[in-house]
């Protein structure tokens, strides 16, 4: 429903599983993908968030990854994960500190390649949930491509996109934009407030991942239902 160009994800995963040369990627694809006609209540989910050195996936790098597995019932913090990553290009004084992360922490951190297996194991077989997919999808693809020579693709639920459908699309919103009305913010914190979710100190990959998981639970309860098909939300 979101993507007008409906991707056949199971077929794509099968094809990638055959083509992938890296064992870790191969195994990731072999785990398959949840069928699009699965009710949301039955979908295993994992919220994912990156902190990056900038917004350009080709130039900038991931410096931290937070993720937390969840479903519509519960967000399970005991299974949450968090990694700091060492950027390849030396850090300039101006680019850090990033949101409380120090130089020395980053220079002691591993390269993505070293922890990739753990990351992929944590998200394999689950549907990844992000707020603003362009960051996570493009940065992960680009970072893996740089290291392995092949990229990665999988379906995502983008909570920002779900907000955008309400506050960015449609005639009324287009009209508002045209006449210069202030549009509702669809940033993570502002979106959460609309569902009466609490304010969190932002810019920590794990906190943001949890915040995203909570937001999706709220969005589904307010606007969809537990029996809504996954394919209505993923992209």
């Amino acid at each position, binding site marked *: 429903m979101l993507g007008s160009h409906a991707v056949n994800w199971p077929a794509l995963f099968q094809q990638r599983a055959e083509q992938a040369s890296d064992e870790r990627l191969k195994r990731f694809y072999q785990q398959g993908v949840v069928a699009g006609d699965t009710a949301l209540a039955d979908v295993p989910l994992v919220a994912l968030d990156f902190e990056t050195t900038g917004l350009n996936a080709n130039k900038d790098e991931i410096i931290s990854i*937070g993720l937390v597995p*969840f479903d519509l*019932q*519960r*967000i*399970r*913090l*005991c299974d*949450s*994960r*968090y*990694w700091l990553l060492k950027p390849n290009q030396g850090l300039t004084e101006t680019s850090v500190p990033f949101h409380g992360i120090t130089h020395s922490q980053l220079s002691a951190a591993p390269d993505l390649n070293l922890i990739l297996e753990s990351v992929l194991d944590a998200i394999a077989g689950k549907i990844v949930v992000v707020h603003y997919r362009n960051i996570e999808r493009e940065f992960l693809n680009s970072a893996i491509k740089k290291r392995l020579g092949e990229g990665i693709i999988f379906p995502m639920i983008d909570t920002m996109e779900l907000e955008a459908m309400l506050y960015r699309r449609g005639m009324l919103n287009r009209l508002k934009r045209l006449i210069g009305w202030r549009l509702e913010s669809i940033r993570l914190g502002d979106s959460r407030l609309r*569902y*009466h*979710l*609490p304010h*969190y*100190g932002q810019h*920590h990959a*794990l*906190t943001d991942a*949890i915040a995203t*998981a*909570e937001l999706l*639970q*709220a969005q589904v*309860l*307010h606007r969809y239902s537990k029996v809504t098909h996954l394919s209505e939300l993923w992209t």
Partner: protein
Amino acid sequence: MQAEQVEIAGFLKQYPPFDELPEAEVDEIACQVEISYFRAGTDIYQFGDEIHELSIIRSGAVEIYRRNGDLYNRLSEGEVFGQLSLLMSQRVRLPARTIEDSLIYFMPEALFMSLCDRFDSFAYFVEVDDNLLHQAVSDKQDKSDLMVSKVTTLISRTPVMADTSATIREAAQKMTEAGVSSLLIMHSPESLLNRASLPEDDALEDTSDRLLAGIITDRDLRTRVVAPGLDLDSPVTEVMTVEPVTLDVDAYAFEAMLTMLRYNLHHLPVLEDDYPVGVLATSDIIRYESQSSLYMVSSIMRQTSVDELAELQPQINACFVRMVAEGANSHMIGSAMSVIGRTFKQRLLELGEAELGAAPLPYCFLALGSMARDEQLVVTDQDNALILDNRYQPEKHGEYFAQLAKFVSDGLDRCGYVYCTGNIMATNPVWRKTRKEWQQTFTDWIENPSPEALLNCSIFFDLDGVWGKVDWAAQLNSFVAHRAQRSPKFLASLARNALNRTPPLGFFKDFVMEKDGQHGNAINLKRRGTAPLSDLIRVHALAVGSKVQNSFERLDDVSEAGILPPGRAADLRDALEFISMVRIRHQAADVEAGREPSNSIKPEMLTDFDRRNLKEAFKVLSNSQRFLKFRYPFSGR
């Protein structure tokens, strides 16, 4: 890398019981919670559901219900629920439903149990129903020396004693040699044997076989011997105080203080199995109570005019504040303030009699309500009345007593005990009655409990003689206790009347929450707490024929009579103590800040600890009110 949950740990650390846990424990909890979002109006738990987690409200609001659908509690950010079900049955006993969109943190049972095992503060917090309130009350009391010290710790030496055969001179010599200000006069074993062989009617009371015959003090030697010029070779028994008030060796220091205040004593013998082990002097107590209410009392008695008395008011407030600061309990403070109030009345009556001349007839000046119950605080009006001799004739004596009453009442008003708005004062001719008239009045009230009569009950059924023929007050009390106990209709009416004022359910955010879900901005702790508790305790006390007035002492009698469910008397005691102390502490803070002390408190002035315990206390009151309906059924007609 195990993820650190800074955001969640930071939230938990702000709220009890997590705020008292070590930081590492809170971090561990934060890593183990599961999170779930609920829309407004969603059931989180239904009755009988299995439960294996403690719920913590991260945002939003949740209502907890009884099985019958009554609202039990309303909780908001930072509050927890499900602990009782977890501890008791692992089945939900009180269903929970969101009333706002809510985010809930769930903490696993194993961790919850482990924290209960390892941290007392955590266990106390979650095991709310009985323990917490009691713990709060006893924690508080631990802070006061007077509360925990046994009277024996105050005794500095063995008592000095003489035989009943001693002369006054021998007694005085003995006191001088030993350097003491009091001497105990003992029956010799032989005299006891002789007394035992006397005919029964000579042994008027059981006390006749006590070893202690009397006490004589420096002051007695001055006032009873030297001043009247008595022969020093007369037997000491002629001038001693016979059968003095004594205290048991197991008593606490504060009981000694209360006893001395109550009977205006300077020396108090302490007995172990009827044998004296020491004598407490006022100074022994004063060492414990730095700015003594005992001093206050003697200071009042020294003032020679209403103007001078009025100037003492700031000192009374200061005395009140100090007692609070020193950790006295509500019984001590209430008693001390009541004694001070009584002393004002006594001194004003002395001054009044000096100005108007001696009374033409014997009378008894009565204190009513909180003063009679020894529960007076700093915000108080004057409730008083007069018992007159049966020979009273209005046309002949009326003018004198009207003037005396006016003198006292005006004086009290100037000293800070404002006029009673209900006009229950001796200045009102309706409340100046002869002994016969009072008996008739009480009989009427008990036999025909009209709404108007019941209105008076909460004031007139707590009465105490402060001046003159105080025996009459005691006799009236006995009469009332006797009649009331035998009148189920009256008790039922009184019980129904005791339900007029109810406690709120608790607190929600910065509001007082009522049972119907309405919110208020402030709570009057007297009207919604201590007053209905006193009302309720009075009903039980009258039902068991108790003649004491103080609510705590009434509870002792009620408890002994066994008419309450097990543990209820102790719960009521804790509830009364806790509400009283919150009220007292806030009044003390008002006085210190130079504000007019008040019974009304805004929830934002209350700590989490106070809120939780007040809520428990309100629950005890509410349950006890329900029991009252059942215990004293109203048959109607």
